[in-house]
């Protein structure tokens, strides 16, 4: 092509600036996600928790957008290529919606008609010294069975 050298250099600079910008955005978003995650740990309000989770999902989608658009260069491709990628991805909306809807319905169904299933959700397992009692017991068993695991 007929790019002159200065053109090329300007283009390079622009591209590098873009990479830098996207790197920073991705890092910032991740940090925000983590902060939200920490904040959520002690949270008791269900509504607030749901709102935070929604925010995290939005941040996740934003990160995905930046990776696809800039790192994978999709934003700079021909419009038609963008469309052939984005349009099929729309299928995920119904894919996710219908699956989760039916998953939820299956839980309600079982809670209504399967007393054993419902009972399970109310019996608390006894905790031995700390929260990880059951875990440690199991771990010990595993170690006995699998010798190689002992190293760790």
């Amino acid at each position, binding site marked *: 092509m007929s790019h002159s050298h200065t053109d090329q250099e300007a283009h390079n600079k622009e591209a590098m600036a873009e990479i830098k910008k996207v790197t920073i955005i991705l890092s910032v978003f*991740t940090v925000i996600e983590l902060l939200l995650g920490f904040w959520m740990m002690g949270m008791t309000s269900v509504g607030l928790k749901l709102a935070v989770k929604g925010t995290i999902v939005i941040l996740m989608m934003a990160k995905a957008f930046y990776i696809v658009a800039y790192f994978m260069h999709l934003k700079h491709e021909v419009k038609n290529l963008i469309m052939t990628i984005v349009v099929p991805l729309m299928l995920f909306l119904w*894919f996710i919606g219908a*699956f989760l809807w039916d998953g939820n319905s299956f839980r309600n169904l079982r809670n209504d008609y399967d007393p054993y299933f419902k009972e*399970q959700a109310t019996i608390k397992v006894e905790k031995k010294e700390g929260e990880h009692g059951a875990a*440690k017991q199991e*771990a010990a068993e595993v170690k006995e069975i699998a010798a190689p695991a002992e190293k760790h």
Partner: protein
Amino acid sequence: MSTTTTASPNEAKLWGGGKSPFNSEYGKVMMWYFLMSDAFTFGAFLISYGTVRFSTNGWPNSNEVFRSFPFAPDGVHAPLVFVSIMTFILIISSVTMVLAVHAGKNMDKKGVVRNMIWTIIGGLAFLSCQAWEWNHLHSEGAWWGMNPFLNADGTASSTNFTNFFFTITGFHGFHVFSGVVINIIMLIMTLLDKFEQRGHYLMIEKAGLYWHFVDLVWVFVFTIFYLL
């Protein structure tokens, strides 16, 4: 029923045959659609996870499960810290991959080699972290079909938490592994001047697409398993 009049002259030329309408060679088009298809594979896994989680009454709290850190003394719990390191490793390796692709576009062999090496190191570091985490969870008694963790509300948990965790992170790890292998092959081909002879570094670009996809999947896996 005229069909070509609606398109602008420039676009009509692109779609008029004899040229790729996407301005990219067939390998890249194929790579994009392969990634679409792989997105549906991962999508199906993650959506299955969501479906099962929605159809189960309780679920373990990820902050109590993923709270260890290598070389940390017993009793020190640091939820989210280790996985955030893994996430940053992958993001940085994605950045170095972009730089490698960029260097390839400028026919800068040295830049390609340097950045590819960093990307490979990043990939290997991520895999090591994952190996450590798997190993740690296994030593706690977690595996396919074994779930030592309790639900957040203290009730017994079904094994599906660990089942999905190991299956999905395993499948992602397999992708990272194959990405590292591809990157190593690309590095060797660069060192052997294969791309210099061809006159273009398009192969690096395609490997880059794959690598970014792996990073992209991790964005979802990380959020869904560790944060939500």
